[in-house]
């Protein structure tokens, strides 16, 4: 079985500056991999190369064993992407947004399916027929997660998914992501939240200045030690 996500000696230049430098990692099916790093570390750029928006200057990125540059559409169809501060359409309701994006993905869903997904992300029923412009950030994020659920893709890319969420919403989100991984979905999450990453990730990669400078794994069913990762993160950031 092909590896869902793989970066092979990935390097990326933007406007003459090195954004990623020889980054390699693989993420197996059902695994949650958190890419941790400060601002400008290259986290979001890594996600965008998997989506084909940025082309590696060296190395390659592979989705399900195939180079993204060979078939961007195939790579994207295997991936549900949740951008930072997911911005769905404010003038449309949750139902309308989800219908629109699912149609766009070529996977139309009926009202029952949408309700089931919104139940999973615990979006209040009364809110579902309201326009998103009246939603809190957490509610918008839940709607975007529901979209990712409904697409039923084998891979999920999350860009700072808990940024701006309250602690309760973060816990709910973590539970949801874990459930998805347990269902076999491969999850690549980029974040600067050390605690959150250690809470749910099977592995954490530490990215700094475009280089993968550290890697931490959960051993024997234990969580990754937050203190260790935080120390490494802080050391690297201040180095």
């Amino acid at each position, binding site marked *: 079985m092909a590896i869902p996500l793989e970066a092979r000696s990935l390097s990326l230049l933007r406007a003459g500056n090195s954004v990623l430098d020889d980054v390699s990692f693989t993420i197996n099916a059902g695994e949650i991999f958190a890419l941790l790093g400060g601002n400008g570390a290259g986290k979001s750029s890594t996600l*965008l190369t998997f*989506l084909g*928006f940025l082309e590696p200057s060296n190395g390659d990125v592979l989705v399900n064993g195939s180079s993204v540059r060979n078939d*961007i*559409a195939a790579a*994207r*169809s295997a*991936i549900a*992407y949740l*951008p*930072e*501060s*997911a*911005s*769905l*359409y404010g*003038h*449309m309701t949750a139902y*309308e947004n989800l219908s*629109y*994006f699912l*149609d*766009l*993905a*070529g996977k139309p869903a009926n009202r029952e399916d949408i309700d089931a997904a919104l139940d999973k992300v615990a979006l209040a029923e009364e809110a579902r027929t309201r326009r998103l412009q009246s939603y809190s950030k957490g509610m918008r994020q839940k709607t975007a997660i529901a979209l990712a659920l409904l*697409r039923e893709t084998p891979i999920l890319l999350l860009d700072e998914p808990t940024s701006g969420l309250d602690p309760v919403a973060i816990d709910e989100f973590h539970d949801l992501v874990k459930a998805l991984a347990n269902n076999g979905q491969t999850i690549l999450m980029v974040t600067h939240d050390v605690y959150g990453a250690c809470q749910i990730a099977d592995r954490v990669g530490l990215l700094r200045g475009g280089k993968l400078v550290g890697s931490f794994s959960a051993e024997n069913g234990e969580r990754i030690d937050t203190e260790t990762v935080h120390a490494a993160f802080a050391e690297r950031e201040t180095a």
Partner: protein
Amino acid sequence: MFRHMTREIRFLAKDRGALFWLLLAFTLSVIAVSFGVTEVREQRETIAALIKEDASDRANALKGQEEWGSAAYYAFHFTYAPPSDFAFAAMGQRDSSPWKHRIRMLALEGQIHEADTRNANFGLVGRFDFAFLIASVAPLLLILLLYDLRAAERTSRRHDLLVATAGYSLAIWFPRAFVRIAALTILLLLPLWSAALIEGTSLTITLQASGIAMAALLIWWIIVEWVNRIDASPSILLTSLIGLWLALAIIVPAISKAVIETNNPVPDGGEILLLQRETVNGAWDLPKDATMKPFIAQHPELRDYAKIDGPWAWKWYYAFQQVGDQKVAPLAQQYRKARLERDRQADLAAFLSPTSFAERAFEKLAGTDTRAMIVYEDAVRGFHSELRAFYYPLMFPEAQYNPALLNNLPNYVPPS
């Protein structure tokens, strides 16, 4: 693709901003077409009323006449270029060139050029007709509908999510733009089609006009699409597109017009009128031979009747009227030729401006272009020649006046 289109139709139905511009487009189209239909109907009514009055006026004028010369002098004849059944869409040169005259047997060129245009002010500012709407206003509406298609999504940080979800860019931007342009085109054309049905415009002309409108909008779509590829904010894109519109719709046509007019000087209609009047008025003081010689050169069949014995004769009077025409003929010819040359060059220059191209194409279809107006002037000249051909054989031999022969007066037939 059908799936993408239905999705974007539903999306458009929820976009209030886009719906506003589309509603405005429909309203403007209704107004433009209504103006055109009203104007054409007024012109037809004017023509019908004048045709009716023309016959009775002439009958009154001819009543009691005793000479062919005085009959020809007092009898006016109404000439006109009727609006085509598509003129409501593009009034074109009908606003700046006369489309009706009352002429008589006197020197003709002055009569053609002394006629005022009915709406000289429109010749200056232009008319809000369908051709203007499609050529100049519709591109602005199209820009407003499309300029931020990508940029607004980038600003809202939704662009990557949309493209990643769709799989490829074309799956979202093409149907989204296409649906808007299709809606704009249909809403602009609906009033035109309705008016075409009411006015009895042929299907061929209606289809051709629809094709021109679609082609004009397609060209602007390509322009907007090309600019929209620039990774810039919506305001910068809008400014750039408005700048391009200004250049292509106003500046390029204005420069082309200035260059064409400078390179092709056209004598003023007033010059023709003045020269002819000077010639005609001057003839009173010239020896009669000075008039009759050049006249007979044109009408050798009347040589035997060219001798003028007394101080006055109608045939001498009409001879110097014709010599007045002969005198200004080179100027009138130059005027005609230069207008046609300007028109030909304007056709070529229109390739630089989609606005000019669409407007001129509509005028050609509507028969309101420069060539159509020259065809009308030629029809007036032809009719005037028929009048001369009717009167000269009676007037020059000084035949007995016989009102019954007036039934054989030529009838003006407008150009079709």
